[in-house]
């Protein structure tokens, strides 16, 4: 323990005590601790990617889950007591963490599978793992053959009356507000935060619910509590499959992804890099959409022939779908302007 600071010492101690992997494993080869977000998503990737990769590399993958990894990344990074190796988390955490010295910079020469991936799917600290999208979904019965198809429609309360819901979070919501205000998708970043909040004020009285969890957003649409809302594509597909009266459009969707990144000072750094390279292998990546409604992080997966064409067309990162969406710029959200915008959110909610 290099740091003599009392708080950090205690904090580090608690992390080590809480982790399932003890410090004495730190030199062991052939295993990593991998952290994702739990639930059906983690189960799906275990079958699709983690198990096959573990077998191919001959390593053990110890899994943990943390719906919000950032506090743990920060704790492990600042104490120098990393117990996690690879984290599957929004790239915002990777970039912000990288900027603060909490996340390892990736040596892409060791990750050949990333070479063919588009530049915007990579950051110096991370590489795209899977795609999802914040889309506009609606109850078709409420609109009589003329449902809302863009955020402009969503904001148009005269032509499209009905209850609405948005996510209680600035990410994606500010983008939608600017698109509603007529900003072209390719000109969104850097976001005009003032303009976005002004536009949000406009729709605020018409928002029934600002949802906080994915399950909640799905329930709102399923129960008919709202007529249209912003929702993650996987959530709305799930209730459509359950027979809910719902549809959605990728038009104006905010394409988001999670990335893989490595905690600074990870106990199994070499294996972790090896793991990342294998996890974004198009062959394994192509398995993911067969088990859950998320798109592969590596678009080369669409060329493997493993994903049936009609399935591919349903996925958020399918090239034709991706074209109609805006790719969220995590670089911008990780910048000080992005952090500032995030802090303004609560103020906006309470006004």
């Amino acid at each position, binding site marked *: 323990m290099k740091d003599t600071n009392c*708080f950090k010492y*205690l904090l580090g101690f608690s992390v080590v005590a809480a982790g399932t992997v003890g410090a004495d494993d730190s030199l062991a080869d052939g295993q990593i601790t991998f952290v994702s977000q739990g639930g059906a998503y983690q189960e799906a990737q275990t079958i699709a990617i983690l198990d096959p990769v573990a077998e191919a590399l001959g390593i053990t993958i110890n899994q943990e889950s943390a719906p*919000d990894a*950032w*506090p743990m990344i*920060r704790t492990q990074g600042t104490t120098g007591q990393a117990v996690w190796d690879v984290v599957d988390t929004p790239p915002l955490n990777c970039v912000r963490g990288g900027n603060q010295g909490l996340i390892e910079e990736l040596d892409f020469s060791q990750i050949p599978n990333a070479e063919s991936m588009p530049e915007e799917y990579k950051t110096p600290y991370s590489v795209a793992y899977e795609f999802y999208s914040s889309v506009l979904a609606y109850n078709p019965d409420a609109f009589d053959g003329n449902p809302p198809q863009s955020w402009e429609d969503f904001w148009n309360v005269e032509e499209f009356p009905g*209850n609405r819901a948005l996510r*209680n979070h600035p990410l994606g919501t500010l983008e939608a507000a600017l698109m509603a205000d007529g900003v072209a998708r390719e000109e969104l970043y850097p976001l005009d935060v003032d303009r976005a909040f002004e536009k949000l004020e406009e729709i605020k009285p018409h928002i*029934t*619910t*600002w*949802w*906080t969890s994915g399950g*909640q957003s799905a*329930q709102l649409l399923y*129960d*008919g*509590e709202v007529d249209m809302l912003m929702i993650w594509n996987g959530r709305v597909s799930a209730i459509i499959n359950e027979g809910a009266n719902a549809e959605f459009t990728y038009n104006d969707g905010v394409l988001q992804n999670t990335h893989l990144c490595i905690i600074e000072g990870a106990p199994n750094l070499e294996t972790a890099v090896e793991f990342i390279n294998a996890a974004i292998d198009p062959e394994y990546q192509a398995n993911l959409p067969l088990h859950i409604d998320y798109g592969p992080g590596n678009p080369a997966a669409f060329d493997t022939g493993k994903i049936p064409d009609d399935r591919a067309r349903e996925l958020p990162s399918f090239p034709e779908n991706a074209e109609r969406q805006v790719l969220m710029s995590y670089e911008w959200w990780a910048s000080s302007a992005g952090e500032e915008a*995030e*802090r303004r959110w*609560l*103020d906006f*909610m*309470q006004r």
Partner: protein
Amino acid sequence: MKATVVHDHFPPASNRDASLGYRRREHALMLLLMSPAVLVVFVLLLIPLGWLIGQSFYADGFTLEHYQRILTERIYWNTFWVTFRISFIVTLLALLMGYPIAYATSILPRRWSMLVLALVILPFWTSVLVRAYAWLILLQRSGVVNESLMGIGLIDAPLALVHNELGTIIATVHILLPFMVLPLYATMQKIPKDLIQAGASLGGSPLHVFTRVFFPLSLSGVLAGMTLVFVLCLGFYITPELVGGGRTVMASMLVSRNIQLYSDWGAASAVSVVLLICVLIIFYVVSRLVPLEKILGAK
């Protein structure tokens, strides 16, 4: 009953010296018996609490920035204002609903009063989370309440009963009602029935007897119930988070937002400490009026 208790603790003066030694031994034994509980409180409550307070002054060294932020930024004032307002409304509603329940229970035959109390306590066995969802289902646009009101023609369009402060208040009152009823019942049960009869025999109307005799005697229970409900409500998290529709931000939600937003335990700790101080002040003020052990149900 009372006399024997007094006798035990204050034996006759003649064997005072012998009893002093006995009492010392008794104290030592009590301490020994209490030590596991004291240890648990110390390790699991006081140490983390001390750590929490320490953290609230910490950001790469000693700092007051977290408290400065609370004092200067509007959202903190707003949040605490909303939290106190909701707690106050919830407390009043719980009192208005709880008092008649407790009163009825205290005068009902024992068999019936036990049944009413069981009904009051029953919701305790259901988790707060489940109850929040139940209220969502009841109160939402296509929920039972709105559908029935529209069905009998009382309203034309569904009312916004949930996903707002109103829904938060309804669900919170439901959860906290037992904390109002139980201390009230305990107090009312101890009010001697002869006093009511005496008041009536002296010509007081039932209303007069109630307002001049019964109600004043039940005031300590009122204060105890109000304090419990108010303080518990100040720390509510799951209910406003689920049925508040995102607009209803209470202090405990600010704690979690602070961790997400500033990724910093210090900022969150500071909010907790301020909330804790509010609670301690309330308890202190109330304890000047009613002994604390009465509020907590020990007497």
